[in-house]
């Protein structure tokens, strides 16, 4: 058992794990019995148990999407995965009550410290369940609800049931079906009308166990005229075998509400990260996804916004960094379903070594609509000649007075540029890091300060690793 934290913490980021005694373990493989085990442990209401079983049937009947996606998906052995591991289903409200072995993980990742410094609330998920969940008293008094999905569906069924699975139907794709069958953890957030949450709410998702699948489920509802910023961070230790992370995140912004959802993930290179994220923006509402994908073996993620009400606005800002042997298959979906809706997509990808980046963008503006606008910009940066980048835009614009603009660029950091920087005394890794940070700089400036610093650090680490 590893008990002494390594002194060289910065270099290893999330690459450490502690042996933990799990009270609940659904074992390996996925059958109806697995579902019953999870539902029993979580004391699910019957409708959720049924929801899960229906999802399992859909998951089993759907083929892998390898007719368009990477064949690497075929290497996921669903029978070898553990679908539920926890030390109990009730998150603690105080770090003092969190079991020692779990607490030290989050302390090492700096979560309690960040909470004190700049967050309005934190949820820290360890494998299947949140170990800790709390919001600052002042935020709670405004009527803001920030709990795990289980607590959300048990204590706030009137709000939960109305929106759960409505933005992303179970059968949306094979992995949303899988998540719907075995989901556990994730956040349930409700912001009452007119409440503007000043500081960000943060969730941290930590995978600790080997051969494990993490399937958190997040539902955020911002009521009329409210505003919230939610941030999530993710890490996992580096195991020899593959680990699966397959989340579903649904956002609902009611009239005039604003939701900003920021992800900075730093998965280790054995993680399949297959996530479905979508928001529903009502009249004059705004949903903005800021998505930074660093690490993982294969990431497939295309955050989307359905602009359902007049003058709704959707935005996706994404940064993907594909290191050697990694594939970042990311993009955005913008569905314009009302007049005068506007959307903006800015995607920047970096491919290093044999790393591969793919951008998939879908923009739909219907025939009957007018005054809709989309702007798409996707830029790729290649570092050394083996790397690969592909762009698959799918733009359908019908109707009158709708405008769509698409710009794409591919640039390279050449050996000549690296040499130039090295001649000034900058190491090869630092030179690549500078160039990459320069490439994403205009996007990073949109992040909250703490996250832009974190992202810069992650890029530095990734570059150090890539030079070897």
């Amino acid at each position, binding site marked *: 058992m590893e008990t002494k934290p390594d002194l060289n913490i910065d270099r290893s980021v999330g690459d450490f794990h502690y042996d933990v005694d799990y009270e609940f373990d659904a074992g390996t493989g996925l059958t109806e019995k697995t579902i019953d085990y999870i539902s029993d442990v979580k004391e699910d209401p019957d409708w959720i148990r049924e929801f899960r079983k229906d999802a399992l049937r859909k998951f089993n009947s759907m083929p892998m999407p390898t007719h368009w996606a990477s064949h690497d998906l075929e290497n996921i052995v669903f029978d070898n995965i553990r679908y539920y591991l926890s030390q109990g289903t009730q998150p603690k409200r105080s770090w003092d009550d969190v079991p020692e072995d779990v607490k030290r993980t989050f302390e090492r990742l700096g979560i309690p410290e960040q909470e004190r410094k700049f967050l309005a609330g934190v949820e820290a998920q360890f494998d299947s369940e949140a170990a800790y969940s709390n919001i600052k008293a002042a935020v709670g008094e405004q009527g803001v609800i920030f709990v795990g999905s289980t607590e959300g569906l048990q204590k706030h069924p009137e709000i939960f049931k109305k929106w759960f699975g409505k933005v992303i139907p179970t059968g949306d794709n094979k992995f949303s079906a899988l998540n719907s069958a075995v989901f556990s953890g994730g956040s349930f957030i409700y912001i009452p009308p007119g409440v503007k949450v000043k500081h960000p709410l943060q969730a941290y998702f930590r995978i600790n166990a080997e051969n494990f699948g993490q399937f958190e489920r997040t539902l955020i509802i911002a009521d009329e005229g409210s505003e919230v910023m939610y941030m999530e961070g993710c890490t996992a230790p580096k195991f020899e075998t593959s680990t699966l992370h397959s989340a579903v995140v649904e956002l609902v912004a009611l009239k005039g509400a604003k939701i900003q959802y920021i992800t900075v993930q730093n998965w280790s290179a054995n993680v399949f990260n297959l996530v479905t994220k979508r928001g529903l923006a009502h009249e004059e509402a705004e949903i903005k996804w800021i998505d930074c994908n660093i690490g993982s073996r294969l990431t497939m993620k295309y955050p989307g916004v359905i602009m359902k009400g007049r003058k709704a606005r959707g935005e996706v800002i994404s940064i993907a960094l594909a290191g050697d042997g990694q594939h970042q298959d990311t993009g955005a979906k913008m569905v314009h379903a009302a007049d005068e809706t506007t959307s903006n997509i800015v995607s920047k990808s970096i491919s290093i070594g044999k790393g591969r980046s793919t951008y998939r963008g879908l923009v739909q503006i219907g025939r009957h609509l007018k005054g809709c606008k989309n702007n798409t910009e996707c830029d790729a940066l290649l570092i050394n000649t083996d790397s690969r980048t592909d762009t698959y835009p799918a733009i359908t614009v019908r109707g009158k007075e709708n405008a769509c603009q698409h710009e794409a660029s591919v*640039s390279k950091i*050449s*050996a*000549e*540029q690296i*040499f*130039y*920087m*090295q*001649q*000034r*005394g*900058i*190491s*090869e890794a*630092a*030179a690549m890091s*500078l*160039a990459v*940070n*320069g*490439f*994403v*700089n205009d996007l990073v400036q949109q992040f909250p300060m703490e996250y832009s610093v974190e992202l810069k650090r992650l890029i530095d680490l990734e570059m150090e690793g890539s030079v070897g």
Partner: protein
Amino acid sequence: MSLKIENLSANIGDRQILKGLNLEVPKGQVHAIMGKNGSGKSTLAKVMAGHPDYEVTGGSVTLDGLNLFEMQEPDQRARAGLFVAFQYPMEIPGVTIANFIRAALQARLPEGEELDAVEYYEHLYKKMDALKIDRKFTSRAVNEGFSGGEKKRCEVLQMAMLNPVYAVLDETDSGLDIDALRIVSDGVNAMRSPERGFLVITHYQRLLDYIVPDVVHVMVDGRIVMSGDKNLAHKLEAQGYDWVEKEILATA
């Protein structure tokens, strides 16, 4: 104490460019290398800096006795005190001049030590003012969209900030109008010191009216074939290089 090049030979691919070159620049002096296009002048600068396209096949280069070729990486050689102002400086999109020079200075500090940002900017602005570079340039990406003259001034700015022990200026005069030439030369002259040596590579004598060299070397086909004082440069300007080649043949 000197920059000493002994019997240096180097190839690019199968082609030999440097063919046993000897040259010594004592600290405190400015030496110029003149030569026709293709004589290997720029190759010499790149080989010393450690450009990955060139293969050293023989000889050595030492900085005050320190063997340059024992340092694999170009950045190690740079930190040991070698600076090359390039003929065609690379553009680095997205990386501002201020961040670039800062990273270069930071790389020279011991681990764990942080550059003082306020002092750094004070120092940077002083050097920029001296080189008549608008302060707005600090937030522009390195060399991106710069005119030829702006690129060269930016090279000299970097040199002034990084304080090398030996500086190689490769065709720093090319692309400069007369005003820019004067500014760049003033910048270089301000750095002349008993603690520093310069190797100025140029095609034209013009630059040497501004940066007056202690010694002028003539390079032909990968070797230094003749050395003299600054008058040698005037003679080359007036009579071209043909007489040099004839003289070599005569003595060969």
